[in-house]
């Protein structure tokens, strides 16, 4: 733990700036502008989880939108059919989605790479079918969905939870489990021979990621006041993975950029790039970003940080250079 403290110290400045920015944002922005940042917070929570799964444990998920949906429907059903307050359903939504995700992790154990991606993609598709199914209609509201309130703007709630979950994710990836996950990703055989329980580590990653998604979904349901299968299209899962990749897989520094991208890139593309085919422009932006900084925003920040550190390195090195220069000049004198 002591080793962590200097790192925390260095990061206090950007973290403090971010907290100050977010805490005061609603004071000088309209409700609608604030709403967009509520959604950024919700996407941030989802991407944090996805990053633990894909970035740290190396398991690709194209079905994260389904777990957001599970969280959203858990909150919607509980608020609609019980007397629980919406805020009280948030941990339950996280637990339900987390449990289902943990169970989903078992069959996923047998799959790698593109096969796992396909299986998770299947989850995204199946989720929409299941909630629309007439068999569960009394429960999920079928294709019409559930209506239980007016749209809200849970800005501080979302960002409070996002901050707590960010800290939790940070502690997790710096813990024994976090190192085990990274080992599982980079060298599974070496990880097993060092005593890591491969199956447990992988399924736990699925469970944690899904719990994060469930919390995000719950907040989304609170924000909307209604849920509908159309709110969780397959495209949402793809967008989330895109956001996670842009933020930087395997680092938590850039996650917020991924979340900002998910919220603002589609709007930006249709307003400024192309009215008829924004998806194409959006794909091009993605390609450009991935091509120019494959490690995502996280890597870029890391490099910038490195440059800053270099620039701020004790003058000792520069003095040494100068001393050398002096020596050279003396030599030329002779």
């Amino acid at each position, binding site marked *: 733990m002591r080793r962590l403290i200097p790192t925390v110290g260095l990061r206090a400045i950007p973290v403090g700036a971010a907290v100050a920015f977010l805490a005061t944002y609603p004071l000088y922005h309209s409700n609608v502008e604030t709403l967009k940042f509520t959604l950024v917070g919700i996407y941030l929570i989802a991407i944090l989880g996805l990053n633990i799964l894909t970035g740290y444990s190396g398991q690709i998920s194209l079905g994260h939108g389904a777990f957001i949906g599970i969280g959203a429907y858990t909150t919607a059903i509980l608020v609609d059919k019980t007397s629980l307050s919406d805020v009280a359903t948030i941990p339950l939504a996280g637990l339900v989605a987390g449990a289902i995700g943990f169970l989903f992790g078992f069959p996923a154990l047998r799959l790698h790479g593109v096969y796992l991606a396909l299986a998770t993609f299947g989850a995204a598709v199946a989720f929409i079918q299941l909630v629309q199914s007439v068999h569960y209609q009394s429960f999920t509201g079928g294709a019409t969905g559930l209506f239980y309130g007016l749209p809200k703007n849970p800005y501080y709630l979302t960002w409070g939870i996002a901050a707590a979950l960010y800290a939790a994710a940070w502690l997790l990836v710096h813990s024994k489990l976090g190192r085990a996950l990274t080992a599982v990703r980079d060298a599974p055989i070496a990880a097993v021979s060092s005593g890591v329980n491969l199956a447990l580590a992988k399924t736990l990653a699925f469970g944690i990621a899904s719990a994060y998604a469930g919390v995000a979904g719950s907040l989304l349901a609170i924000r909307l006041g209604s849920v509908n299968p159309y709110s969780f*299209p397959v495209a949402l899962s793809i967008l989330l993975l895109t956001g996670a990749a842009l933020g930087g897989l395997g680092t938590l520094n850039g996650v917020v950029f991924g979340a900002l991208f998910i919220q603002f890139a589609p709007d930006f593309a249709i307003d400024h790039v192309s009215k008829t085919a924004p998806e194409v422009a959006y794909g091009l932006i993605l390609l450009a970003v991935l091509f120019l900084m494959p490690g995502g925003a996280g890597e870029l920040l890391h490099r910038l940080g490195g440059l800053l550190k270099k620039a701020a390195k004790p003058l000792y090195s520069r003095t040494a250079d100068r001393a050398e220069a002096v020596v050279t000049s003396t030599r030329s004198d002779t």
Partner: protein
Amino acid sequence: MKKGLLALIAVGAALVLGLPAAFGGSSADPGVTARSITLGGTFPLTGAAASYAPIPRGMAAYFSYRNATKVNGKRGANGRQIIWKFYDDVYNPTNTVTQTQRLVEQDHVFALVGGLGTEPQEAVVDYANSKKVPQIYVSTGATEWGSKHKEHPWTIGWQPDYQAEAAIYGRYIRDHIPAAKLAVLYQNDSYGQDYNAGLVGALGKAADEKIVSTRTFNVTDPSVTTQLVALRASGADTLVIFATPSKTIQTYATIARLGWKPAHIILNSVSATQTFMGIAVNLAGAATVNGSISVYYTKDPANPSWDNDAGMKLYKSIMARFLPDADAKNGLYLYGMAKAYSTIKAIEGAGKNLTRASLMKSVDHMTDTTNPFLLPKVVVKTNAPKDNFPISQQALIQFKDGQWNPISGLIDTRPKG
């Protein structure tokens, strides 16, 4: 010194916070001035449902035309320039809620007009009604827009409702093909269920005997082949399709591939525009598509028999002027213009003192026979609380060699009373 500064800040803050309240206190509703009126709506401009994007663009073209042209001595809507804002919601209710709040709270629209899609619009009904913002002429034919006037007095549809349309097919079957054995394929959502309920209701007691097989699909299903194989195996001779455009086209292509040639095909009007039928003909062949039966209530820009009609000429001139690159044969542009016409009529009907309440009063008590884009003699009529279905007359049409031709006069499904 410090105290003085604090006091100054406090006074300043109070002023800043208090000012909007002071000015907001006037009697006029947001979005309307003596010179302008701001209207807005959400539509799928991108994504799977983007084929509906011509609707808000057709509306934009008509509003621009009226802003630029004096009609009855006045430009715009009763002398007010119309500012029309429409945003993409990708047919995703998450976006619909945010974009609708953007329209109401940031753009301060006077009314929400023409918002598209049953599920997306359902997601903002309670919001619009709690804020008392008119949500008029939604672009969906779900029966609830007219039948739930008590719950949602600020919301109303425009086009004929799906149940009424399906009832026309039911009556047609009863009167013209009484021996038909029906196979029904419908989309498993409120849209398809609404249509199916209308058909079953219209057939009455005979429904069980006439409908030999029913299959549903989800709009996200990759194909409808399994459903169609089962429907064909039921021995039905008439296929009833209640689907959105892309699934309808897929259905035609699939029955052509299966070699199934039902004696009759009945197709809901949403998917029956020229553009979609053209694609269906390309994929399935004219032999499969010809003979299909549907209904319409707007003039058909793809049918040359309307070429000399004054309303059609107006439509084409507006298209040429404001949307020169668009395909004017796509009936969705005309649908948008017809809706924009009704919107202006409603605003004019609200009179000089235009408020959100007076607009709703005008929308709820309207009789308009002048819409140049609707079929002749179609009346846009409401009489709240009894009748909240603005359009309820339609004519049966049959597809033949690239176009729809009428096979009946207007059929009225307006609720009695």
